[in-house]
């Protein structure tokens, strides 16, 4: 279903999206962004995708804070 990608065009598009992402200050890196675009292109719902990003981020930040506090707790 994904057509043969013109790598040049794809990179261009990615550049632009990355630029926009930076302007909007999403904090996503290039690679993650490319994965997200690919998923979106495959027909995944953007709402769900954004939810994944949000939740996982929240989780990591949370878990890391948990982890950082964990050693001292017991």
């Amino acid at each position, binding site marked *: 279903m994904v057509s043969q990608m013109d790598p040049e065009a794809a990179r261009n598009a990615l550049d632009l999206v990355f630029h*926009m992402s930076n302007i*909007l200050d999403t904090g996503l890196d290039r690679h993650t962004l490319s*994965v997200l675009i690919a998923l979106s292109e495959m027909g*995944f719902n*953007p709402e769900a995708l954004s939810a994944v990003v949000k939740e*996982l981020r929240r*989780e990591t930040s949370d878990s890391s804070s948990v982890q950082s506090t964990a050693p001292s707790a017991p």
Partner: protein
Amino acid sequence: MDDGDRRALDLVKELVHRLLSTTTGPHRNPNIPSDQQYHQALRYAIRILSSRMTPSIAPDESAMVESIKRKLATQGKSSDALTFADVYTKFSSKTGSGSVRNKWAVLYLLKTVSEDRKIQKHQSTAVASNAFLSSALSGGLPELVGNEANRNLGLRNDNSKDSRGLVGKLGKIDKGYSDGSLSDEFQNLNCVSDNSRVVRGKSEVGKGFSGGLLMVSKDPENLRDMAYKEFVNLSKEENEVSEDVLVRDVLYACQGIDGKYVKYDEKADGYVLPDWMKVPRATRSVVRKLCELGFLFRKVKGYISESMNQFLAQDVGTVGQAFCAALQDELSEYYKLLAVLEGQAMNPIPLGTESACSGNYMSLRRLSVWFAEPIVKMRLMAVLVDNCKSLKGGAMAGAIHMHAQHGDPLVNDFMKRLLRRVCSPLFEMVRRWVLEGELEDIFAEFFVLSRPVKDESLWREGYRLHAAMLPAFITQTLAKQILRTGKSINFLRVCCDDRGWADAAAEAATAVGTTTTRGSLGYGETDALESLVTEAAKRIDKHLLELMHKRYKFKEHCLAIKRYLLLGQGDFVQYLMDIVGPDLSEPANTISSFKLATLLESAITSSNAQYDGCDIRARLRVKMMPHNTGDRGWDVFSLEYDAGVPLNTVFTESVMTRYIRVFNFLWKLRRVEHALTGTWKTMKPNCITSHFFSKLPQAVKSQLLLTSRKCQVLWDEMNHFVSNLQYYIMFEVLEVSWSNLVKEMELSKDLDDLLAAHEKYLFSVLEKSLLGERSQELNKTLFVLFDLILRFRSLADRLYEGINELQSRTTAETSINSRDKVKSRGKTNDKSSEPGSWLGEGRKALTERTGEFLRNMGNDIDAIGKDYATIFEGFISQLPVQQHIDLKFLMFRLNFTEFYSQLQPITRGKLF
């Protein structure tokens, strides 16, 4: 299990991996996420992805971009917004292979992620996110709780087919995924999808929550959204028509179009909902209120189209046209607003998720807010239309100006804007009139009216102010000044054939700083207008006066008129009277005016008048007034002065008639004086006559002496009166008025001043010469006196003729031989040589005849003297009654010795 699913799974894994690794920043614990964490996260991600979460807004790419941009702009990052727009245009222009197809999804993704991040930033520690992980770890259903953890949970329901497909796909992914523990999770997911349906109200949310449903809290406002939706549905059930339809109808009505339900009702004179419709009363009244706009619009629009149609057929006038154009402009603003509203009503507004009202459609209530301002404007316009329908031109501008006197700044601004447009033709007219003298007014809208008149009355009657067309913002004085300036230009152009005014006008324009081109003035700049008018008036008036004085020699002509028509040039008048006198005694119809003209010519050449410029001499003419049978030449003779083209504005026909009246009076006075002097020549006692008298018999002699004494006394009395009157006229009246005129002439700043000065001069001359209306009685008496004096003159002439005859008869009787000799000499010789001639035979008869003649004469003189005394007494007593003029000096001179007041002790009290 196809390739695509595999790929999707890989991508999801990759995503999870990256997210877990990257978001833990460098400052974080460098621990690589554990396998368990990773698997849990992956499972959770898959679960989310297979959920039926869909965006709450319809996919509209451009709206999304707008929303992002607006957001950036409101955050104060306008430059970012611009860059974003730029990048986006590039991005959107990329099509074809390799480019992103679902651009909207990407944008949406970016936006939501960025918003989320911002929220996270604001709340450095997530309050409730623990719940998710712990529940996930425990293997139960995770709750996704809103950041604020306020339990404002909502469940987005969406029955779209797509999500079903996706869920199926994820199901496959699940199968492919090695970890079997995920399978039951997916079972649950499927169950969720089955159960998913319209969830409404808080209680159900609660139920869903308690039932372990996946709650996605996208934003904290969800509850409000839901409440709103519920309300919409409720109202849909209650009303026969939905609000959307009503909104559309109202919008139509506001454009003057009948909607589906809201229609124009002739009876109610407005747009109303039909009675049969089942709508709440509140809605009905709101619709009715909103449709006031439609009613007003109809009115304004109707007026505009009506006048548009009449542009050619009737005279709407330029001001009316400008008014229509201004209204049209306002309406086009209004159209724009309506178009926007309509657009918003027809399409859901793509609002950000944070926006409270994702209620998508325009409501009546919102409309009423939107309409608040236009309705005020429309009301104003309708009022103006009502008021100005029948008006035009300056009157219309004035009427609108009256409405502009308003305290509300909105109204004030609106009116000013309108007035600027409306008044522009008017101001243009003023400008052209003041600077170019052009009256460009086909529709009679200007407050200056012109009338086709002859050149000489152009100044006085050619133009006038039209009070009805004078708008209130131009004061009366300014209007007068405007009128005069334009009139001056026209006068210069038409009567003086002068071109110099153009320079003066241009100079004035540059002095004020406005250009001489159109459109430099506008409403509200009355000061500018005033200064322009003042400057132009100053220069043009100055130019005109210079022209009047230098080129047309106004003063010289005035002086010439005074000298000839007002008999100021004594030698000329004396000579003229001498040579035309005999002719004027003839009946009027036998006198040839050509002969008189020749006589006038010779009078000029033989007096000092010959040194006047020939320009002035040529203008002096003889004029014979229309005469009746029995009129003598004296009655119809007058002089005339032809002032020529530009000056006949001052010396109009009526002015000249008044001059001629004065001339006639003075001429009569002169004639009387002349006559008296002539009489004196014959009657003055000399040695010849006294010698002759001494020869006469005693009776005759005494009678003769008595009569001639009477005659002399009367003469003296008359002469006293006439010469004093003449003195008074010449010095007290003419000279004083003249010196006043000269003074005022120098002070006058424009032609009107000059005219007024001259008018005053002439008036004072007329009044003081007792020719005014209020001294008619006196004037009549005066003319009776003159007639009496002239009668006396003929009587005296007869008396002295008789005496002469007697004299010559006596001489003839005594010495026939000396008859041929020169009379005077003969007389001298005869009388001395033949004293005894009275002793001749015809002596008795002669004595008798002489006695009778002398007696008759004496009686006549007595009669005249008596008449004269009575009339003169009347005249004298009337003098102090003339309060409006100062006759004290005349009175004083006439009654210098208080002779008359002694004669008339009764009137004495009145006199002094």
